[in-house]
């Protein structure tokens, strides 16, 4: 099975494909509209020398742009989620629930929180599908 280096365009493409192929996702996410920008803070001790900026876009069960981008692009996201590398890795590996991470301040979210709360199943499903992507993390290398 193919493996992908985290935070690369290939990794994002693989994640996007998993989401696009999921009938369950299509059903759960039928009401979701809009983009989510993800910012991973730099952590040189974990081989993440610079901040990572990602842009993911979702529309009524479909997936649109999934891009490695620059900081300016992330500011156009409907939602902007920010966190340290270690937290993102925990969330992506489902060692830490996204809702719990947000409530505990381990991740930060800018945007309409009530919308996220109403659509929390969509958020959880997107993360579930990420765990299906064989990922090599920067500090695993």
């Amino acid at each position: 099975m193919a493996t992908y280096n985290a935070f690369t365009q290939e990794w994002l493409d693989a994640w996007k494909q998993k989401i696009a192929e999921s009938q369950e996702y299509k059903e759960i996410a039928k009401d979701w509209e809009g983009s989510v920008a993800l910012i991973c803070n730099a952590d040189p001790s974990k081989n993440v020398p610079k901040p990572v900026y990602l842009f993911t876009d979702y529309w009524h069960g479909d997936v649109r742009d999934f891009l490695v981008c620059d900081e300016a692009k992330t500011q156009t996201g409907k939602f902007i989620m920010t966190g340290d590398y270690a937290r993102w890795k925990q969330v992506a590996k489902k060692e830490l629930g996204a809702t719990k991470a947000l409530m505990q301040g381990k991740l930060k979210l800018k945007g309409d929180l009530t919308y996220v709360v109403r659509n929390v199943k969509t958020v959880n499903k997107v993360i579930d599908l990420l765990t299906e992507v064989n990922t090599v993390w920067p500090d695993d290398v």
Partner: protein
Amino acid sequence: MAYDNSLSFVYFGPTKIIFGSGSSTAELESEMSALGCSRAVVVTDPGIIKAGLSEKIIKTLGDKCVGVFSDVPQDTGIDVVNRGAAFAREKGADIVISIGGGSVIDTAKCMCILLTEGGDLANFEGIQLLTRPQTPHIVIPTTAGTGSEVTWIAVVFDRGKGQKILIVESYITPRVAILDPQLTLTLPPLLTASTGMDAMTHAIEAMTSMHREPISAGMALHAIRLVSTYLPPCIQDGNNINARGQMQLAATMAGWAFCNSMVGLVHAMAHSIGAVSHIPHGVSCGIMLPYCMDYNIDDGEPEVIKIYATVAQALGVSTRNDEPKRAAKAAVKEIFDLLKRIGHPLKLSEFGVKEADILKAADLSMADGAIVNNIRYVLGKDEVLGIYRRAL
């Protein structure tokens, strides 16, 4: 109660609690000084002023009260917070003191953000965006139920968008809560009952959340004991200051419990039927609580049954040696009995709720974030509808 070997959690509850009859006047000034503050803006609402609950407190502050902002409606809004913050800034306030219920406390929490960060509250919509301590806030609650005095959540109406926004920030947790039971003596019986059942629901749902943890469970279990023991005497005699005080403690402990462990199906269904039929939050929680407990128990999951058996012990209707399923069912029956004892509404139809309303509410419930925290996985809308029909 057993927890997985892999148990890991964060418990957060930094608010200092001052409890005692008369504490709102006796302790306020020294708590303010301890925070290094000398210029307070008091936030309250017209009902509190009319009831005379804030007068003595404001008088006690003397020159240290630089202004009173009382323009807080039942459901606060971004515009209210912006006005309140502008008022406090103009007065040179270095601390906010809130005297009131949930809406007043949430207004004050958000004013503290603007006093420190500046700008418009709409720019702070989100979760955990703040990176530094905010203007100090002392809460003096006048109800016993929401637990808002120790939580880091504020709900504010955005009139521009026509919807409520949620602000979740560790840094808006009040520094001090002064629980003075004298301030709750005038609460009318139905409001006492419904706010009390709000606290009971926070406690039981914190026990049965997917995110439950032992410190919250400890808080929740004692809150359950206190509500079941002291809510009925508060209804029988509103002037029973001992019972009123115990209910304040229960609400605060339940607030810590649910804010750390989160709430589940009861809140999902209560939010939804509240939105459709405009039933007050505490009342809809009280009505839905036993039906949702019964639904969770009926799954037959041994761990769930054990938790409800523990709840039954806290409610005083079971002992450790009782058969767990029987004890769990006894907990449900006791909640029904408690509702009757305190004169709390028992059915949604008492508020004119019809089949068409529960159909809409069932859809909303499935999309409510709290439903995913419930200890029993809710398979679909039909299950929610079934619970609503039983409560109709």
